[in-house]
């Protein structure tokens, strides 16, 4: 039993090897028994940890209400965000907690299939999850079919419609969904998609109940969460924090630069937040008034020595390359944004005109992709325009910027060398 007010929870008993099923059950032993899982999940107030922060119980209820004999529970451990390491860290320590949660969710919605999706580019996590699934299936023959799936890693491959499309024997490309809420389907079976960390939280709620769960976090955003901290830190790290912890103390725990210029919150489709806001509490209710969210639990720390425009340009360039290139406004618009940013960052070819174009193009592109990939990029660009306002005007005016000479970059992007050989199948 984990004491109610204590951390870690998700990373309880974690070591450098994944807990075996027997050790897991000893470490997460519980004397409470939850009678109605879905009611308990609703009472817990858990929201999704994959980006959108939607109440997990509402999503589950929607799928439970669907007809269909062959429902699917999909665990999204694709972790497309380059600055995110939390799902792989969790699955490398407590894979069975994630699988517990997936089984609870499957029973809530009446699913007889559980598909755990890990990007094939991450062989050690694939191994850990494969072994954990093997341990469980060897022990029980009842219950839903538990399977590991390994789509290719791409930023948009973890978008839920792309993931479900891939599971349905297709390419991992996002789909057009004009009406929301949209029920995703694999064959004829309605599918519920939840992030791996969300599932692990459900694993805790199923064992210890909503009241226990709420003993950490805030009333509106209960529980704990995993945060990937990279950039100006001693070592890139994943920390588990109580929701509502001041941002500054998360940085301290992670060994980050405590006097940064800004932090990038959420992920590469998230927002920059200026250093004057470091005392804000890390939870979506408190972050909303300053225009940001916890997103996928990413914090990239930007030191004062770096140039926020250069960092943003590199991210946008990479994100443009990750477009699935199905929709015109995304396929053509994102490279155009990257180019505008490049002219501003490197003060080449009329940066002033590029700045005007950048703002206009954001307004033109927004909301016009089949998925939210372009909107994430626009959110990032707009937050950069706001947080680095002075830098933008200096760049546009042609003043010297120290940061553009920096050889080290803080928001890491995977190599762009493979630009032409994108794999979707």
């Amino acid at each position, binding site marked *: 039993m984990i004491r109610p007010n204590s951390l870690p929870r998700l990373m309880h008993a974690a070591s450098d090897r994944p807990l075996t099923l027997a050790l897991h059950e000893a470490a997460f032993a519980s004397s409470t028994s939850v009678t109605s899982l879905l009611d308990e999940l609703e009472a817990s107030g858990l929201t999704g940890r994959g980006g959108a922060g939607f109440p997990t119980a509402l999503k589950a209820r929607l799928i439970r209400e669907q007809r269909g004999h062959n429902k699917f529970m999909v665990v999204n451990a694709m972790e497309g965000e380059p600055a995110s390491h939390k799902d792989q860290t969790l699955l490398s320590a407590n894979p069975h907690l994630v699988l517990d949660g997936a089984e609870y969710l499957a029973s809530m919605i009446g699913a007889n299939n559980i598909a755990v999706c890990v990007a094939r580019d991450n062989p050690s996590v694939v191994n850990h999850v494969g072994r954990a699934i093997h341990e469980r299936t060897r022990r029980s023959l009842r219950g839903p079919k538990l399977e590991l799936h390994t789509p290719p890693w791409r930023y948009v491959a973890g978008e839920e419609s792309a993931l479900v499309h891939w599971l349905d024997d297709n390419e991992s490309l996002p789909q*057009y969904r004009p009406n929301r809420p949209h029920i995703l389907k694999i064959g004829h079976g309605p599918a519920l998609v939840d992030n791996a960390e969300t599932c692990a939280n459900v694993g805790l709620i199923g064992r210890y109940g909503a009241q226990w769960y709420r003993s950490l976090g805030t009333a509106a955003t209960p529980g704990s969460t995993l945060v990937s901290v990279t950039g100006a830190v001693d070592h890139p790290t994943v920390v588990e924090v109580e929701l509502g912890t001041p941002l500054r103390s998360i940085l301290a725990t992670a060994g980050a630069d405590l006097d940064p210029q800004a932090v990038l919150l959420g992920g590469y489709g998230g927002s920059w937040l200026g250093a004057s806001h470091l005392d804000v509490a890390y939870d979506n209710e408190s972050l909303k008034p300053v225009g940001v969210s916890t997103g996928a639990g990413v914090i990239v720390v930007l030191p004062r020595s770096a140039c926020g425009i250069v960092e943003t340009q590199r991210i946008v360039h990479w994100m443009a390359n990750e477009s699935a290139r199905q929709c*015109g406004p995304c396929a053509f*618009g994102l490279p155009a944004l990257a180019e505008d940013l490049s002219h501003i960052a490197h003060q080449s070819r009329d940066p002033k005109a590029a700045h005007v174009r950048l703002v206009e193009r954001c307004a*033109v592109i927004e909301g016009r992709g*089949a998925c939210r990939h372009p909107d994430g990029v626009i959110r990032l660009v707009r937050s950069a325009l706001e947080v680095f306002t002075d830098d933008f005007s200096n760049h546009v005016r042609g003043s010297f910027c120290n940061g553009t000479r920096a050889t080290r970059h803080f928001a890491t992007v995977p190599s762009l060398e493979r630009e032409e050989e994108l794999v979707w199948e």
Partner: protein
Amino acid sequence: MGVRRRSGSFVLRVNPILCDGFGHCAELAPELVQTDEWGYPILRSEPVPLTDAGAYESARYAERGCPRQALHIHRISEKKPH
């Protein structure tokens, strides 16, 4: 056929995955469609009342005339204020 009562409004929507960006729709329904710098349609987002017969006609033209069948008219039923 009897007279259809036209209450409510509509918006024209595009499936961006199907759309080829040749901009045919902007010619068929200029009051509802503009094109961006790459030729892809930007659709008027405010709902148009169904009583605006001219706009509705254009929308139908565009919907039928789109070579990729990427356009569809989305009807919004009238919500009574109370």
